[in-house]
């Protein structure tokens, strides 16, 4: 199990699950969870490539930390916006925001 391929398979599964979540869920928080899965897939990829790619520097792992930090910042902003949506619409269903069309 301790080889690059297994990590890449796991990250691909994570990515696909995230993509599926973003596409199908209508709950704002669940969509955010899907996006987090995509980011985690990328993070896992970076770390795995760094570990098994024979690279001397740790830049892939550092990028993993960057992704975690920015994902947290993004989640903070997105959740604040979803709270605001809840205040205005009494629901977190993103389809309820349909004032503008066309």
């Amino acid at each position: 199990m301790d080889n690059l391929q297994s990590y890449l398979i796991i990250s691909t599964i994570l990515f696909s699950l995230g993509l599926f979540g973003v596409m199908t869920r209508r709950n704002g928080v669940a969509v955010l969870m899907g996006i987090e899965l995509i980011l985690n897939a990328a993070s896992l990829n970076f770390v795995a490539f760094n570990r098994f790619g024979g690279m001397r520097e740790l830049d892939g792992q550092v990028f993993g930390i960057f992704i975690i930090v920015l994902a947290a910042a993004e989640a903070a902003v997105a959740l604040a916006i979803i709270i605001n949506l809840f205040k205005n619409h009494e629901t977190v269903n993103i389809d309820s925001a349909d004032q503008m069309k066309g």
Partner: protein
Amino acid sequence: MSNFSSIAFYLPELLLVLTILAVIVVDLIPGLKRFNWIIALAGIIFTGILLYGDYGVSESLYMGTIAADPFAHYFKWIFLIAGFFTILVSRHTHSLRDADLPEYNALLLIVVFGLFLMASATNLVTVYLGIETVSLPSYILAGILKNDRKSNEASLKYVIFGAFSSGLMIYGFSWLYGLTGSMSLSGIQQGLAGVQEPLALYMAILLVLAGFGYKISMVPFHFWTPDVYEGSPTPVTGFLSVAPKAAGFAVLMRFFYSVFTTGSMTPVAGVDWLTLIALLSAVTMTFGNLIALQQDNVKRMLAFSSIAHAGYMLMALSILSPDAIRAVMIYLTMYLFMNMGAFFMVIFAENQLDAHTVEDWKGLGRKAPFLGALTVILMMSLTGLPPSAGFVGKLYLFAVVIAGKKFYWLAIVGVLNSVVSLFYYFRIVKAMWLFNPADTKPVKAGGVITLSILLFTIPALLLGIYWTPIINLIDKSIGF
């Protein structure tokens, strides 16, 4: 260059950060709260002075993660001009309440800082950081009118599409890193020369294009554009339609020309992304123009028109040559003036008449003849009629496509699209001038708004008659 000696070339950005902090701190001191916008504007002016001092510098800073080169330098001017006038005009926009303005100014300055980073990033980490530093405050700016349902909806759609496409992009980055083992753009370029898996590379290119395409609102990553542009406060819309789009093109050009292009100007490893860009360009401009035809809301119409403009600029990027970069930079300069000018006019109409649709604009030319005349020039320029800046910009784009000898059909699609765009831009002109309003009482705009519209209309006309200085400046700014 080492971290310490890089600081000497990073002063404009550092001053911008200081200004951001000053704006936030001043907001907490009751007596000084009112002067907050002056600090923001002064910060931008002094950043401009420091930036002017950096003219002609070409250095690689912070261990090769950031470049201070003429290419980035040119784009930084676009961001500063856009940021300056957005802060200036926002104070005179009725829909933005005064109470929110300190945070608003600070957020706008953070976006400008992020744009600087985007334009000068030469490493996967800095590209990602730059894009996120632009995106996160933009989400908040779009939704700054907390109790306004449209503004709220705009920020919701922006954050979901934005986070999603930056997720796709970062996944693409991880594959590029895996294929080459390098984080710097030049290192990736060298690593990709011997790549054995074109399929993995193709996927990486698609995913990276998704991230950048979202920033420049390229079809099929444009879904957020109309709603965000319509729902956001108008100064924010004007800013978002110009500055992040310019930065998106800067990072797209730097990335694709240095990572996915070999030293001898051919696509890397035989992956023909040029045809892909040509197709996307044709779809983007056709879609933008056709949907814009059916819009009644002026802001929404300008949103679709900005999608179409992104399509025109992508057209040049389907040809691999330094001329393509030059043409896009010229067009972005013209676009800065004509598009922001048009949005200032929208602010004026909203302020004085609460006008949102083309119907509401009827007779506006009779009520405010001077601003009405300026709007005609701006619309001419957006359409690309001579003698206006938009015409010169389009001329260079088409020249690149035709000189490339590869996509003649694309040039034809582009010309047809320009003709279509004439219809909806001149619908606004027609509404303004060919209808007699019920009351012909003159409508006066505030001095700042009038001056801003005038200052953006003059270049939109002048650069169509005499554009040599801009070309000379851009010719010195192409190298990266």
